[in-house]
């Protein structure tokens, strides 16, 4: 079967199996059922090793499937962290026992995963995290707080980055673990964002035990494991697998031109600007995709695309409200929701400042900032918010 046939077959399967959204049923149950079907059809873990439950195929098939899936909204949201980040990390860095235990249940939609890196005091500086894992007999005990955790309230397992040594510089005292999210010492509290929705959680760990078999990578080598995860996160965001296509975006040109006065030349020119910025970024993204297909990997240049998307998102919602005027901010106008959510893309997955640093350092090869935090023992380092 060549790639085109693969894509056609995938499309046919999706039309059969992904069409009915049955929105009245429980979304988690629906997700689990769909993942099981996906697994049975051979579309779960397309590029993952066969030995652990994947299909052992290449990026080409993965891309063909994504292309086929573009017109569908696959109900796999609760598995996005597992499939995009924690699963690939275990495949790359886990022990065989861990792969055996965790990968197949993930691919079959039996177990939901979340990722536990971010902390309120650390922010962009992930490695300055303060959650502690302390030796306790053969295992470990965890105490601390995590934040910005998607799907944690559904999760069975979490990939947890914790501090295991405060006497060494911050990057050198971290260890990665798999933690049981069903343990009673784990408290998941929904975190309301500025739009009033709760898409994230805060997690509190109160003497949560972890067996040493659930350690991923060496003790104090957790940062290198986290780098693997974050790499997968970035790939996953830029690929946007299974995410919506923004067809109903109230800030898009198609939507705005219907509700604004296009007889006003100034309004028309604003819409032209919107078109220009959209096309510029869309073509850049398409070029990156074509390059990837041709074997040129975008690497840190993907951070430029992410930065541009973040700025475009802010710009579009702002423009929409300015064009529509007073009506846009009352009575549940879709633009009202859009303007509330528009900062999200500039904050999640690295702030715009972090993206600019990455582009400057890794794409342009500029000299790094002098770092004050690379040699100081963690216990002597300033972190978080200092009154």
């Amino acid at each position, binding site marked *: 079967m060549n790639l085109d046939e693969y894509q056609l077959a995938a499309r046919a399967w999706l039309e059969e199996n992904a069409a009915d959204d049955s929105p009245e049923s429980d979304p988690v149950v629906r997700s689990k059922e769909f993942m099981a079907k996906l697994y049975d059809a051979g579309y779960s873990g397309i590029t993952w090793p066969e030995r652990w439950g994947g299909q052992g195929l290449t990026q080409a098939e993965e891309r063909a499937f994504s292309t086929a899936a573009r017109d569908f909204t696959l109900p796999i949201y609760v598995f996005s962290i597992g499939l995009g980040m924690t699963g690939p990390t275990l495949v790359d860095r886990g022990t065989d026992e861990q792969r055996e235990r965790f990968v197949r249940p993930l691919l079959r939609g039996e177990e939901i995963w979340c990722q536990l890196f*971010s902390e*309120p005091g650390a*922010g*962009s*500086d992930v490695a*300055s995290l303060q959650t502690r894992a302390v030796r306790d007999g053969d295992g470990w005990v965890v105490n601390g707080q995590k*934040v*910005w955790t998607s799907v944690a309230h559904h999760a069975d397992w979490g990939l947890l980055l914790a501090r295991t040594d405060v006497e060494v510089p911050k990057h050198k005292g971290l260890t990665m673990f798999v933690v049981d999210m069903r343990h009673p010492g784990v408290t998941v509290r929904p*975190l*309301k*964002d*500025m739009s*009033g929705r709760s898409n994230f959680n805060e997690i509190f760990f109160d003497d949560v035990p972890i067996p040493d078999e659930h350690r991923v990578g060496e003790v104090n080598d957790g940062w290198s494991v986290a780098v693997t995860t974050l790499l997968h996160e970035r790939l996953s965001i830029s690929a946007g697998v299974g995410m919506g296509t923004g067809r109903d975006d109230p800030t898009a040109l198609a939507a705005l031109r219907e509700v604004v006065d296009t007889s*006003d030349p*100034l*309004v028309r020119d604003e819409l032209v600007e919107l078109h220009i910025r959209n096309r510029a970024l869309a073509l850049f993204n398409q070029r990156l995709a074509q390059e990837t297909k041709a074997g040129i990997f975008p690497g840190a240049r993907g951070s430029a695309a992410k930065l541009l998307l973040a700025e475009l998102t*802010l710009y579009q919602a*702002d423009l929409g*409200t*300015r*064009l*529509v*005027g*007073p*009506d*846009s*901010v*009352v*009575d*549940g106008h879709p633009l*009202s929701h859009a*303007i*509330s959510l528009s*900062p*999200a893309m*500039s*904050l*999640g997955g690295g*702030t*715009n*400042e972090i993206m*600019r*640093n990455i582009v400057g350092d890794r794409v342009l090869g500029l000299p790094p*900032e002098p*770092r*004050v*935090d690379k040699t*100081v023992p963690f216990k002597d*380092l*300033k*972190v*978080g*918010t*200092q*009154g």
Partner: protein
Amino acid sequence: MKLVLSEEQRELRTAVRSFLAAASPLPKVREGYDREVYARLNGELGLSGLIVAEEYGGAGAGFAELAVALEETGAALLPGPFLSTVFATIALTEAADKELLSGIAEGRITATLATGPLDRVINGMEADVLLVPEGDVLTAVELDGPGVTRTPLETLDLTRGQASVRLDGASLRALGPVPGGLGDRLAVALAAEQLGVLRASLEAIVAYAKIRVAFGRYIGSYQGVKHKLADMHCKLEQAESIVRFAAWAADESPGELPQAAALAQAYVGRACFEVARDHLLLHGGIGFTWEHDAHLFYKRAKADEVLLGPPRIHRSRLAELLEL
């Protein structure tokens, strides 16, 4: 032209600022309109009667003083019908209604003004009286009177509500002519509030940049943050200069008022939103949370920017006034 506050104006500012800091801190702001705070605001500081003529029991102050007060209520995101009552008071300039004006001056009556269709009236739920310009005539209706239905609207701005008002057989009382230059004066009053929102946003993020650490350094020490804050400060300086000018023009130079008012909305409205947005973004993830106050300023700034219409109307006005 007077762009610097007088001693008395600085004292007024200090008084309003300390009062609001104590009586209406941000956690309280989230709870919404508090009549008792208003009673004290009016009783202790006389704010509601600030620009009401002395013959109606007000202080007879000018826009320069009003701008000082509005900057502070803006900075504090004071909820409730303060700006709307100011709007109404401005509208009553030529239709001086003794009962209304002395009620406002005493803090007994709160009011609002229809700046657009009645299906979105700012503070329509809290105000006692709604003023509606009907052609050249200013009319008034009691909002809790017969024939009036008001429905609260879901609003982006969590600290200033709007309501949809339906009049069905309600009696509109004609008060007199709509004053000339009403829109200009509303624009200046709003710009003063926006200046406050801008200033408070900048102060909040500057304070945070001095205590928040990333990669072992205060974030305010990074040029990525510092230079953005410097640019925001430049906007503040210019916005304040424009508000002082526009307030002075409203008081002293009617010929310059139309341009000054359009300039105020065109510049200050935009600057306020940009600063409030960047202040939120520079807070990082915490600024995106409901618990943090950043979004309150961001949303007020956006709601204010479009309060008097799509912002381009102020620019078109300027183009006309400049005879371009």
